């Protein structure tokens, strides 16, 4: 699948490739965003900034990785998953268990838990991939609910830690700024890898399976094999995000790590940004996290006698925004946004 020679060639032309990419509109916009993200932690040393605001960025980055992994599986490969929290949660639990009860170092725990998530991807993908479309969606949803309920049971608490899970884990890093940069690097890595995959021949095959599985089969592609690859790759990054999330929180518990709501977070973020774009997942995640942040920040607004507590109504407001966005921008907000911006930019330059 991977041809070393081609990779070498690509590496050789990398600088020029990069140069031409930077010159494109999306390229320069991406660089601009990355630069902003890079300088962000240096803007203020205020605790309120580093420990509250930056941490929201870190959270958004974790969810960006998670949502991008979902986008690879569903947006690119067309395998609808409603149970992505399986990998997220399993990895978080393994990571927490290894650190807390086996005293493994943090990074080794993350690596092991991610690998375990991949095995789960294999184990769950293998039987479930016979299903198509909404059936697969329900199958994965059911799988995640089974895990959730098993982990929740008080009578199994001796084995699965019960509803209270594992707590008092060390943080990912000593300060939020270091944590921010670790996640920043991993987010960039994830996105570079996932975008490259989606653009590669391998990605083309995955997309062909999404568009027409029978046709792909007729083109001599072993679709099952590629779907399992997609499942494993996706669960790898979901697992990575899950491990980071466990350490970000410092604890794991069934609802918080296996909950259906997390699977839906991934779906919402990825589809807000735009399905099959990968980078849309990042936009969706940041939008999602900061909308909530902003609504809490706005707090109570009094208009005449009417007091609207945006903090309290945040989920209702969020639901409305979600419905409106999906209703009027079915393909997410990233692509249309970029196109409009590009049009404006071209106009500005007089093109």
């Amino acid at each position, binding site marked *: 699948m991977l041809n070393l020679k081609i990779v070498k060639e690509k590496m050789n032309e990398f600088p020029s490739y990069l140069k031409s990419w930077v010159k494109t509109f999306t390229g320069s916009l991406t660089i601009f965003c990355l630069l902003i993200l890079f300088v962000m932690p240096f803007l203020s040393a205020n605790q309120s900034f580093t420990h509250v605001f930056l941490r929201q960025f870190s959270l958004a980055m974790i969810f960006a990785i998670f949502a991008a992994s979902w986008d690879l599986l569903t947006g690119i490969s067309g395998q609808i998953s409603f149970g992505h929290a399986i990998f997220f949660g399993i990895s978080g639990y393994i990571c927490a268990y290894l650190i807390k009860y086996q005293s493994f170092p943090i990074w080794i725990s993350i690596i092991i838990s991610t690998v375990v998530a991949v095995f789960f991807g294999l184990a769950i993908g293998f039987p479930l991939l016979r299903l198509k479309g909404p059936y697969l969606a329900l199958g994965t949803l059911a799988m995640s609910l089974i895990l959730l309920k098993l982990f929740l049971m008080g009578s199994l608490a001796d084995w699965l830690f019960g*509803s*209270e899970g594992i707590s008092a884990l060390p943080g990912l890093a000593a300060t939020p700024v270091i944590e921010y940069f670790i996640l920043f690097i991993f987010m960039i890595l994830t996105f570079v890898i996932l975008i490259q995959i989606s653009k590669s021949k391998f990605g083309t095959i995955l997309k062909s399976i999404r568009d027409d599985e029978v046709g792909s089969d007729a083109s001599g592609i072993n679709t099952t094999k590629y779907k399992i690859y997609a499942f494993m790759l996706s669960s790898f990054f979901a697992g990575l995000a899950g491990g980071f*999330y466990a350490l970000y929180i410092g604890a794991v*518990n069934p609802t918080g790590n296996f909950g259906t709501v997390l699977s839906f977070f991934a779906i919402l973020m990825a589809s807000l940004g735009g399905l099959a774009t990968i980078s849309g997942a990042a936009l969706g995640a940041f939008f999602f996290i900061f909308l909530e942040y902003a609504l809490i920040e706005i707090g109570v607004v009094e208009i005449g006698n009417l007091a609207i507590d945006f903090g309290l109504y945040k989920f209702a407001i969020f639901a409305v925004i979600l419905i409106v966005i999906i209703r009027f921008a079915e393909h997410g907000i990233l692509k249309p946004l970029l196109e409009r911006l590009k049009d404006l930019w071209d106009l500005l330059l007089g093109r």
Partner: protein
Amino acid sequence: MEKLAKRIIAIVIIAGLGVGGGLGAWFLFLAPGAGEYSWSSKDCPGAPSGISSDQIIKFGITGDVGEITGDGAWEGCYLAAKEINEAGGIKINDTTYYIGVTREDSDEANPNLVTSRGIAAAERLVYNKKVQFGIGGFRSEALLAYQEVFMDNEIIFINTGAATDVFCENVRSWYTRYKYFWRSMPINSSSLGEQIFNYLFRLIYVLNATYSGEIANVGIIYEDLTWTEDLVTGIEYYFGPYGPLPAYRNMLTANIPYDVTLTAADMLTHVNTLMAADCDIVIPIISAQGGLMLMQHYATLQPNFLVVGIDVQSQLDTFWTQTNGDCIYEIQMQSIHVTNKTPTTIPFWNAFRAEWGHDPLYTASGSYDALNFIVWAINETQSLQAYPTLTQKMETATKANILANPELFPSSVGGLGAYWPTTHDLVAGYPFGFTLFCQWQANATKVIMPSYNSVYIDSQLSNIGTLILPPWLITDWTT
């Protein structure tokens, strides 16, 4: 010409976007970053206007906004702060301080818990609002995650809702880190178990004496979650074949753990199972909607058993309307009711009702006590330093010290406040942390049951009523 116009429009739009984006960025980055939360009189209920931020002792309350337990914690703290501020605040080294209270939504009562929201709430309190003390917490798994933020910053945090033992075990096992953690409500789940056993043993004894040994079987029905585990193990032990009290051995005939997502039809099945197992007393250990369903079917089917146990929803005064009166005859544990658990309990109860228009939930009395306890320690030490000054002062509130000199310690509404110095947990047992057993009786009245001196000394408490058995039960037991 047209091109130029378009270009101008584009410039305007991009400028507009830039300004809009800039404003948004300013709002998001700078507003919370540069200007921290500014405390003022509006955060200090009952305080005079125009006090400066330095004069405020800042309390942060975590909990679910718009949900009964979280609102309870807030309401209790608010009332305590208001009373102190209206009384003129507190003086530390001749400076007058007022109590400021603020809350953040940790969303912890959400069935779809998102742990990061609790963390974010705690971080906002600690880093943005710079609170000096924390109060609140209700859902164990959420609190387990976000308590770390307070511990990291060496801020005293008093839990007022989560009963799990693990929190205070932390204090014992890792004192250097968790010494800032305290619990003011409820008593831990092991002690809860102890109290319910004491009461049940006595109740069964009394009933058997009255109805010539009719009580032969008990059943339990509980949420299959971690918090019920110890209680259930206790019940299985005491009423099982190897119990220490021969009279109560082999009484347990039904043992029903259920998944919290049960429906009313499932509950109907369970009630029938309990009836088929010939239970005479059923012990629910329920925090969620199961209690309502249980009592609904109880009212319809009029089964030959009495319900005695834990039903968190039933602690609320609104439970009667919620169940349409179906909760009648249910006996359940609750931390606080209109009785003189301590001299301040009834005044607190009345003040709370006057302020908020409904009865206080256990998180309300717990947070009221928590705030008063901290303020007492501040007053006594004339210091705001969490460790060692305040912590060590608070640790003097031991059982022995309070019993010896009760007047030296702050009054508490939930029972005499005493905190085991090694675990910072509430001392269980009369007259410290103990629970009341209350029965719903006709006309939406909730009556405190005599505990036959098993949990509390009945003669010492006011408003103790009498146990009323359902008529069908009396018929069954007397014939």
